[in-house]
């Protein structure tokens, strides 16, 4: 058997895990008792994910070495098939190429670690089986997304992960706020999906196909040229003047929704309502990067439209900067990380927008290491602090949570961009490619984007330092000043304890990856870049090479930026009064930043409140008013009115009727006589 056929097991094993949890989870807990049952279930949840990782390694090993043929399509069955003049054929097919293998490794590797962590984090939850049901289902859909060889199958995964995100954000369903956050996430994602779907339609209209690569085709330039040719020479679609522009723009709307970019970012911060492993897996490491993955997977479409590239780059740069400003105003530890995720995703799109798709993917990889680490660390902190997330009640936790602190320390430096940690390599690549993107957007625009990116890098170091300081480094233990708690909340007598082995092990592994993961892939023979060829590297663009001196200067600048951000924040945040405890009002621009510069509120008022009022108006006026009252009941009323008018004639007296008849008869006879006489 072809070892590449093992690819079906990669999502297949978690699917079995999902079914197992869904149908037997509760029964097993009931039968074996709480502790033993959860142990079995946790094992059953983690195992298929790591097995998927192992199979991914096998796939990697069996991938053809020839870089031109490193894309293999495996087809399971014909899923959608409509015969027509333009027949629709959507097989259930997977594409095994370097890009999908990279994503699979993240999903199964980092995902497996987070599963392991979650067995500890959720150990006390009575809905343990339900959690892992959703968690395993997420892995299934995410793998479908990354392995799909056509847009529709990708869309299945795309919406499927959205579903799991919805279910997991609302996991603690007794709190209505969680449910609302879940709804918000799903609906905002659906807006993106609306664009994505229209993009799929347009792709099909142009190409009469939705598959990325035809089975058995070599991945050489000819296939790219063919697509470009088809796209730019208008294929007889009178209603779309410029499909080469619209396809990437519509697809990018989908990416914006999933990856929380631009105007559609606003669901991600609220998504932190879910359990922390969910935030780490879905809202940091994997699902939210699906937008970047999709842009990279379809980079050929983007390359063909300079405008679309510019839109991607600008939206990415703007979001990176905008989210970074908001992060400064947050006090919820997970929200800081959420905005940092939005900001980092902006970075990835900036990379895509300047044509550095490889760097964007590279950042996806490193980001999944350190952001998963930071989220899991924050989860450990939250667990240690009785589920309190407000950093104003933290402080001096490095004393109580040594392992968490030491691992998060490396995550902090990695995201700040300190060499030689993971974040530095990918960020530096993105920045230098942005600077070199003059060939695409003009030198002025390139420098502008670069400076936005650099400023954001400084800010990233800044707000992460603020978070670390407020949580671990400041020596005053602020929760000691809290009033006595009512329930199991945080109170002054609380003693934080380090979390268990199941949770520290993933932290340590991820910390190691954050330390060496970037360097291992970036230096030397440019491992990542060569590996992802030809999925990403094969390109129609010819970027300009930067002279060596400039390159060195750029590296220096990005190191300097990181250090400046760290130092400034370390010095400045000693003296920020609002961060010192509760009850101190936030002033100035940070007050606005806390409220997301008013954007979220405005959106809420416009669409939720305003939309609701509009809908009520439509219902009351058009439906109940015009159609039902005026037209339907109006006709009934009209008939009734006529009846009322005719009523007096129905006196009920037989003699009256007889008399009326007589008059009629006389009139008729009279008329007949009259006619006879006149004649």
């Amino acid at each position, binding site marked *: 058997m072809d070892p590449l056929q093992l690819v079906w097991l990669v999502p297949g094993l978690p699917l079995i895990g999902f079914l197992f949890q869904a149908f037997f989870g509760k029964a097993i807990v009931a039968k074996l008792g709480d502790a033993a049952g959860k142990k079995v279930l946790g094992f059953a949840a983690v195992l298929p994910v790591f097995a998927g990782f192992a199979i991914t390694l096998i796939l990697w090993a069996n991938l053809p070495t020839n870089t031109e043929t490193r894309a293999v399509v495996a087809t399971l069955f014909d899923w959608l098939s409509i015969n027509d003049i333009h027949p629709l054929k959507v097989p259930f097919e997977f594409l095994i190429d370097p890009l999908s293998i990279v994503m699979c490794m993240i999903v199964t590797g980092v995902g497996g670690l987070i599963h392991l962590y979650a067995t500890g984090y959720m150990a006390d939850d009575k809905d343990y089986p339900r959690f892992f049901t959703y968690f395993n289902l997420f892995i299934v859909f995410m793998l479908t997304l990354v392995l799909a060889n056509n847009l529709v199958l990708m869309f299945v995964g795309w919406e499927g992960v959205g579903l799991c995100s919805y279910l997991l954000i609302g996991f603690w369903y007794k709190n209505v706020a969680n449910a609302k956050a879940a709804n918000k996430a799903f609906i905002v994602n659906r807006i993106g999906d609306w664009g994505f779907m229209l993009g799929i339609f347009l792709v099909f209209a142009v190409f009469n196909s939705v598959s990325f690569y035809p089975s058995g085709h070599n991945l050489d330039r000819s296939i790219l040229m063919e697509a470009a040719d088809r796209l730019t020479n208008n294929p007889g679609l009178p209603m779309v003047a410029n499909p080469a522009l619209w396809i990437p723009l519509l697809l990018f709307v989908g990416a914006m929704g999933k990856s929380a970019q631009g105007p559609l970012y606003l669901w991600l911060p609220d998504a932190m309502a879910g359990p922390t492993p969910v935030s780490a897996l879905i809202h940091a490491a994997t699902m939210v990067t699906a937008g970047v993955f999709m842009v990279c997977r379809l980079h050929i479409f983007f390359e063909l439209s300079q405008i679309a590239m510019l839109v991607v780059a600008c939206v990415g740069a703007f979001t990176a900067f905008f989210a970074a400003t908001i992060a400064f105003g947050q006090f919820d530890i997970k929200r800081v990380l959420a905005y940092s995720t939005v900001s980092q995703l902006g970075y990835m799109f900036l990379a895509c927008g300047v044509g550095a798709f490889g760097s964007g993917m590279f950042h996806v990889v490193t980001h999944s290491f350190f952001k998963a680490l930071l989220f899991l660390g924050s989860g450990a902190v939250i667990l240690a602090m009785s589920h309190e997330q407000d950093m104003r009640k933290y402080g001096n936790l490095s004393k109580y949570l040594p392992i968490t602190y030491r691992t998060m320390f490396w995550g902090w430096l990695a995201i700040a961009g300190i060499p030689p940690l993971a974040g530095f390599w990918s960020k530096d690549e993105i920045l230098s490619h942005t600077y070199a993107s003059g060939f695409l957007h003009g030198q002025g625009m390139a420098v502008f984007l670069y400076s936005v990116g650099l400023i954001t890098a400084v800010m990233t170091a800044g707000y992460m330092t603020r978070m670390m300081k407020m949580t671990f480094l400041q020596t005053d233990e602020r929760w000691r000043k809290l009033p006595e708690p009512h329930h199991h909340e945080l109170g002054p007598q609380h003693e934080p304890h380090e979390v268990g082995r199941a949770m520290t092990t993933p932290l340590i592994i991820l910390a190691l990856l954050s330390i060496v993961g970037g360097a291992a892939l970036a230096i030397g023979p440019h491992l990542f870049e060569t590996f992802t060829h030809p999925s990403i590297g094969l390109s129609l663009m010819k970027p300009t090479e930067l002279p060596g001196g400039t390159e060195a200067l750029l590296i220096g600048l990005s190191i300097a930026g990181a250090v400046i951000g760290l130092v400034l924040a370390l010095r400045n945040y000693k003296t920020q009064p609002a961060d010192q405890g509760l009850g101190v009002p936030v002033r100035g621009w940070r007050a606005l930043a806390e409220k997301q510069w008013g954007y979220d509120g405005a959106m809420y008022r416009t669409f939720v409140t305003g939309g609701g009022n509009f809908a009520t108006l439509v219902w009351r006026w058009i439906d109940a008013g015009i159609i039902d009252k005026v037209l339907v009941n109006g006709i009934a009323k009209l008939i009734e009115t006529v*009846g009322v008018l*005719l*009523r*007096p*004639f*129905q*006196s*009920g*007296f*037989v*003699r009256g009727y*007889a*008399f009326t008849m*007589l008059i009629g008869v006389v009139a008729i006879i009279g008329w007949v006589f009259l006619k006879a006489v006149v004649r």
Partner: protein
Amino acid sequence: MVPLSGYLTLSAILFTIGVIGVIIKRNPIVVFMCIELMLNAVNLTFLAFARYHPAPLAHDLAGRTEVYLAGQMYVVFVMAVAAAEVAVGLGIIMAIFRLRKKVDVDDMNILRG
């Protein structure tokens, strides 16, 4: 021999009496009698015309001669219908009488719209 116009005049007088009776009388039995009067006035007309202007002889498909007695036929029909009507009508009047203990057409207007 009495001329046709004589029968017709008598018929018209009877009919008019009937009409006036129906309109002005309050006792339903009398109203019924007046209706009978009107019907018989019409019967008289039928018979008079049938006698003075008999239908022409006709031949059926087989060539046999047929005699039409259309006028007389109608009279039989009218008498049958009148009898049925009286039966139903009197039944209704009896029912009303049982219900109200008196019969006066001016009191019967439950079908008013």
